[in-house]
């Protein structure tokens, strides 16, 4: 790596929480509307996000660029580490290795998921109103459902454990007690955010999302 790796690593740590960590939480809450309020609630959430001003610019600056930097530099960070969990069987050492493995899984998952959803909208194959039915088709397939659960758990673990490490890397939690307390809080974050995503995946399997889909297809058929 050219330049000073201190700044690159610091930026990598910051971007993982702001904006990417924040985005995961907002995304989880928006998806949860599918579980709490059904297709209308989810459509409202999607509509709210799509109603933001300067959306393409926000997406590029707040999501795609941070994601690319964090992802690609993260692969380099993972390449630079060994795993010695065989010799040092400590919880934190397992988390160190898991952070790198889940990072790579998340990297692949996020590309695939963005292709299946957001890029389809950009390519004009679906509209953002049809995202609910797109998700219904994905979640209804047992293989895709399992892969999504793995991808979501990896991403949320990576975020929660990364939050714990962020607090150390920026000098916020210093002593062992502060780090222990923050590890409990981050574990709580992992459980809650994972639940948001998994419950919404379960909700997407419901037939009501399919009905919306057929209604939309019928509507398109009428227009066509």
């Amino acid at each position: 790596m050219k330049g000073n790796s201190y700044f690159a690593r610091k930026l990598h740590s910051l971007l993982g929480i702001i904006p990417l960590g924040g985005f995961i939480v907002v995304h989880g809450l928006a998806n949860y509307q599918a579980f709490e309020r059904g297709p209308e609630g989810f459509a409202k959430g999607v509509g709210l996000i799509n109603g933001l001003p300067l959306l393409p610019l926000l997406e590029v600056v707040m999501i795609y660029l941070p994601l690319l930097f964090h992802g690609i530099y993260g692969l380099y960070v993972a390449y630079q580490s060994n795993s010695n969990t065989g010799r040092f069987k400590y919880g934190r050492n397992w988390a160190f290795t898991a952070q790198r493995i889940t990072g790579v899984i998340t990297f692949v998952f996020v590309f695939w998921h963005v292709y299946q959803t957001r890029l389809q909208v950009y390519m004009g194959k679906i509209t953002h109103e049809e995202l609910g039915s797109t998700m219904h088709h994905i979640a209804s397939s047992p293989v895709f459902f399992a892969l999504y659960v793995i991808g979501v758990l990896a991403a949320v673990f990576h975020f929660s454990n990364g939050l714990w490490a962020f607090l150390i890397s920026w000098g916020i939690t210093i002593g062992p007690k502060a780090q222990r307390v923050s590890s409990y809080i981050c574990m709580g974050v992992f459980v809650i955010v994972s639940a948001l995503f998994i419950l919404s995946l379960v909700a997407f399997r419901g037939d009501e999302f399919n009905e919306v889909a057929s209604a939309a297809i019928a509507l398109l058929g009428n227009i066509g």
Partner: protein
Amino acid sequence: MAETTAATKTVKFIISRQDTPESKPYTEEFEIPYRPNMNVISGLMEIQRNPLKADGTKTSPVCWDSNCLEEVCGACSMVINGKPRQACSALVDKLEQPIRLEPMRTFPVVRDLVINRERMFGALKKVKAWIPIDGTYDLGPGPRMAETKRQWAYELSKCMTCGVCLESCPNVNDRNSFIGPAAISQVRLFNAHPTGEMNKEERLEALMTDGGIEGCGNSQNCVRSCPKGIPLTTSIAAMNKDTTKHLFKKWLGM
């Protein structure tokens, strides 16, 4: 019969050997007579006196490094039954047999169990782990250190540059330029000293370069492995705080 077996009680060693820095490592087994209160060093001394392998064939004596024999110099660090530690304080009675000895391969192996820890001394030079008071005239007495501060700083001063924290760290390897936990903790020690504090920015800036504090991945193996119980992860987090503050102060021109 029971008395005979007790009289011929032995200690088994499986030792990883390497003839030159470039040659391939191989293992040899040794079985030496047991004596009460043996440590790994006295076992190695016995092999040196009588270099016979367990099968009775002759071999060259095993090379190792040791000095103080009371766990304060760090020279005899090696991997004993999978864990890096000092051979002098590794008591045979408390070890599972056969006792497996390996060099700490994070460092270049010179021969058998002897390693070259030069990179650690290089790291201390990089972070300027000293207090510059040498000059052509008497600088007079320095500022006093508070007793409460001296007490925790003393814990950091116990570091003997043994290399166990680097051996346990997953980020100290040949793909990574990380200097390791020991030198970061020394920055905290010298920056805590009332006279050393006068040059604290120099040490922080050294930590803010390639292979500096950014190399820490928070596996926290170091603090669990340190034979002197130095709070290495607390030192790293404290230096994270100080380097972050220094970064913003520099950006804002303060």
